[in-house]
């Protein structure tokens, strides 16, 4: 399907369409997508690192698949996520930028509302983003269905730049998505952040 649709930061619409329904297709192994355009994975690595380094509040949202040590791979990935967070934190300007690590521990709808300072919930992820003024984020370890819900709601109502580090086929509803995530891939992204440190203008 040919499409002129681009997956861009919002706020997009009262109820934005799924990117898939607008003709955006997922990358094949070895590829990623930026705004819905398929690119080599390395290009997306650089772009994601630049987004983190230029954001006021670059944030990682780890989900249950990496928060719980349910197998060796999950534990290894969790360490890689922590390493990425520490790398971002060390690489940004502490006077102008604040790196955050906010978990999505489960997917239960929580009423009357969650505490946006300590967690993010897939049913109303916009609350956490608004509260913390998050302008760039990365989902990792979130089940694909729940990640897509969140990414689309975020695109609908916030101006946050979304990155997905997906262990399966990737996410069209993110502005930038990797697929087949491994601990090594997360560490490689951290290396890109290190490499670009000091070369990306911090936010005004």
């Amino acid at each position, binding site marked *: *399907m040919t499409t002129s649709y681009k997956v861009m930061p919002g706020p997009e619409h009262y*109820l934005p*369409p*799924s*990117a*898939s*329904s607008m003709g955006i*297709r*997922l990358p094949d192994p070895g590829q990623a997508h930026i705004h819905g355009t398929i690119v080599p994975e390395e290009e997306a690595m650089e772009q994601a690192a630049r987004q983190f380094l230029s954001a006021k509040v670059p944030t990682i949202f780890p989900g*249950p698949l990496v928060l719980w040590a349910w*197998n060796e791979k999950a534990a290894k990935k969790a360490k890689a996520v922590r390493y990425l967070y520490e790398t971002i934190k060390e690489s940004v300007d502490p006077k102008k930028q604040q790196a955050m690590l906010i978990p999505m521990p*489960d*997917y*239960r*709808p*929580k*009423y009357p509302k969650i505490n946006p300072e300590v967690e993010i919930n*897939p*049913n*109303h992820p916009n609350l956490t983003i608004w509260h913390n003024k998050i302008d760039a984020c990365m989902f990792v370890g979130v*089940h*694909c*269905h*729940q990640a*897509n*819900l969140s990414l*689309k*709601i975020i695109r*609908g109502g916030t101006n946050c730049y979304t990155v997905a580090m997906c262990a*399966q*086929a*990737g996410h*069209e*509803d993110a502005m930038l998505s990797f697929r087949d995530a491994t601990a090594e891939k997360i560490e490689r992204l951290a290396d890109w952040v290190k490499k670009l440190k000091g070369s990306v203008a911090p936010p005004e």
Partner: protein
Amino acid sequence: MATQDSFIGQKNKKDQVYTDPWKMMHEAERTPSFFTGSEIIKEAVRRASCDLMIAYPITPQSEAAALCGELFAEGYIGDYFRGESEFAVMSQCAGAAFGGARVFTTTAGPGTMRAMENFPMWAGARLPIQMIVTCRGINSPLSIQPDTLEISYLMQTGMLVWHAETAQDFYDWILMGYMVSEEPDVHLPLALCCDGFFVTHTKDMVDLTPVDMCLPPYDPYRSPVPCMDMECPPVRMMRDPFVMKSNYISYATHASWQQEVWAAIERSRKHTIRWMNGLIDTENTDADIIIVASGTAVSQSREAIAILEDEGIRVGLLKVKTLRPWPGEEIQEATKNAKHIVIPEFNVTGWLAREVKATVTNNERVHAGPHVCGGMTMPPEIIASEIQTLLGIKTATLAARG
């Protein structure tokens, strides 16, 4: 917890080798066999590594369901039982799929309608259950004969919906169906439909894959939702469900959830095209007249095209293999030069013609018919006659000949 790939090359308890599905379907030697459609369902399921089949008798799928019972007795299916009704069967299928099992079932006509509440639930819960639908009449007065009206209801459920023409389609698509519907970016139930009796109860030559090869088992850890998490939607329906709250966030979440199901159907295109070599098949689409059909209406159309060819009228054919995902762009492209698009159907409402009319430009080109229903056959002559009438050629009606 072993991945699917780690099973390849190992043997199951029936000494079948878990085989790379692509090699099994596309490279393994095939054996021509003469079987009924129902027997073909059994042969496909024998090779599908199903954990569970749940049955309930309703014509014309009862034979296939009973044959799957034999497979259980032989040890090819993990578990097998009869539900209390079609509604119960589909609910039980959901329970098993929530628990991480590869599930297979069959139904037909009023059974499909009785169980209908479950199908959007399956899709919303992202359960990759496979259901064979051997279509028959659904309305009063009772008819057990072929009629495809129930497909039009299934098309709005959020399930993948494919329409097999032949027993060979059926065999291949049952096995390929699991491969597509279990992809993590798809992970949706599949309604694999055929025209009851015409396919289920007639014998045909079918090329079978080796009986000692089978699909690798389902890997529930690739699911896009947690496997049987009682605390989280979609399972946790009675405490804090979205529908019980009156606020924008709840509505928006539910809306986003629905969109995600339909997004998953869109994602299935890529996998379906790879496995089935496209969502449509075409022949002679440079002709001025193109027949667009699905199911056994395709077979009848081929015969009609041969009749017309003898009379010097050239007609193309477009076989619609998948209804969800809908091959809109493919149909637009294949029919772009056609002056007439003729759509024969085995149902009273003409749902395929409606879909095509909503897809193509200049849709006055779409001719919805001929229609038969209630179990009537569709002789190729009536399709040929419809086209001749469309071209202004006078023909005797088929009924008048009898």
